[in-house]
């Protein structure tokens, strides 16, 4: 199913490390209402996750981050105002920002500079986007939980606006430079996330919402009118929600759940893998 990473020790013996994934593979999300597996390609895309408290947003974010953490061709930047939702992946990530708006701003500015440099590089190479097995450019997954904390809760108004603007730039221009933004927030209304930013997210996931209009805010205007409303999802069924990905029409999916122990085990494994690769500069990937 996936390539097995092989490390070479100093005396030139190959040690198989374990299976890895690729961020260029579609990410397994869960099953649809007909029992079929649902996978979503995330490279060159952005995902917006909404839904009422407890609807399973962080669980989906964890599923995405788990895939990315196991993909050695992807780097992670995590922003989690609650700290615990993505905290397990801290050791796999290049950067982890807790509930601190200045730190978040600093990280996003650095990412913006990185993005500009990547475009300089791509321009020099006469290329238009990152490709699998790119030698110098690895995709970045920016996972953002509790978006509203940074964009509408703490800090000064100017800072919060700067946060939204930086993120909008990353979402708008980052696609070809391999920057994937996955953001989760409870109700992405215009006071939380500017409409100009919200509409840039191609892919949406709406966990249960309390009203039809909340569901429309996540999925796009008029979806409730067409019969797609996350209001009909049972409140006792966290992880179920409407997903808009390929195909464009929403589909009802249930997100696969990683419990805390599994998450921790995967995170530890991924961290070990990443450390090994970082210390041994020439890992070979055997099919």
């Amino acid at each position, binding site marked *: 199913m996936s390539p097995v990473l092989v490390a070479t020790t100093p005396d030139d013996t190959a040690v198989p490390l374990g299976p890895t994934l690729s961020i260029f593979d579609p990410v397994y999300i869960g099953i649809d209402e007909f029992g079929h597996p649902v996978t979503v390609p995330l490279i060159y895309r952005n995902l917006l996750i909404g839904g009422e408290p407890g609807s399973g947003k962080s669980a989906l974010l964890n599923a995405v981050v788990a895939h990315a953490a196991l993909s050695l061709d992807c780097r992670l930047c995590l922003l989690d105002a609650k700290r615990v939702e993505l905290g397990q992946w801290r050791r796999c990530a290049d950067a982890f920002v807790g509930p601190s708006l200045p730190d978040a701003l600093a990280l996003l500015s650095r990412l913006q500079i990185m993005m500009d440099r990547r475009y300089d590089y791509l321009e020099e190479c006469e290329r238009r986007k990152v490709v699998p097995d790119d030698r110098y450019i690895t995709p970045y997954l920016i996972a953002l939980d509790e978006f509203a904390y940074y964009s509408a*809760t703490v800090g000064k108004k100017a800072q919060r606006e700067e946060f939204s603007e930086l993120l909008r730039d990353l979402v708008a221009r980052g696609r070809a430079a391999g920057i994937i933004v996955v953001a989760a927030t409870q109700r992405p209304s215009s006071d939380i996330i500017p409409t100009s930013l919200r509409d840039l997210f191609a892919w949406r996931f709406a966990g249960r919402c309390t009203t039809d209009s909340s569901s429309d805010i996540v999925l796009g205007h008029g979806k409730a009118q067409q019969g797609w409303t996350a209001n009909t999802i049972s409140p006792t069924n966290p*992880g179920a929600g409407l997903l808009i990905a390929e195909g464009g*029409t929403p589909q009802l999916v249930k997100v696969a*759940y990683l419990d805390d122990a*599994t998450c921790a085990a995967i995170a530890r*494994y991924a961290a070990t893998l990443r450390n090994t690769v970082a210390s041994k500069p020439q890992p070979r990937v055997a099919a």
Partner: protein
Amino acid sequence: MLGGRLFGPRPGVITVVDPPVSASYARKARVAFFAVSSVVGVSTAAVSAVFLHPVLAVALGVVAGLVCGVPAALVTLAWPVLRVLWWWSFEAVIVAFVVLGPALLADLTHPLLALGFVLALAGVCALARPVRCWLVAWSWCLVVRHRLRVCFADVIRSSATRNRSAVLPLILWARPTPAGERVWVWLRPGLDQSDLEGKTGKVAVSCWAGEARIVRASPRFAALVRVDLTRRDPLAGTIASPLAVFIGHIRNEAATPVSPAVPPVGLDLADVPEVPAEQPRGGRR
């Protein structure tokens, strides 16, 4: 539904309320008669004129035209009835099997043997869970086809002021899904998907389902739509991620740390001093 007013308004009778369906079929029958009889008649006459005397050829053409035109007109006129028969044909076949099968069996063997066989079959159907589920699932598909037709007829009637020419869609095929049923429908001129938008609630009600979804089924044909009916929730259980299996072998390697370096102090409200130091406004909205 349509059988009652099969034969259209009689000549000379002026109807106040226009019975659109039967009148249109009477008109169609007339058109079919003239079209078929003239085409067949003229071509027969033309071809036979090569071999026969022209008068004979014309007579032959008239006869052939009548012979073909009258059945065509009758079929068109009776089309509403034939259509209903077609709609119920599957059920009719099943009933025929259920009634005739045991009778035939009793005739061929001993009646008691036939009775035993029928009872055994019924027992298997009722008691074996997979068989029962299969039967129930496919029975719902039969029911849903009829309910959908009723529903579409209703949609057409309610939009009759806008387009009186709409034709009932063809219900193509229905099959069970873990959640309910999935039906493919071929829309005919006068209806499109936007007519059905916002009617999903009505569709669900008339199909006795929990929810209905109507999506376009083919990028090529706007007429082909798919109706998904949901009556069960297959998403209620927890789905395990394949990633857990993927790295299963390292799962038990070490226990998750339970107590981090932080001492568990100050976790109750009583442990927090009454007037807290100046802090940014935290928490959620």
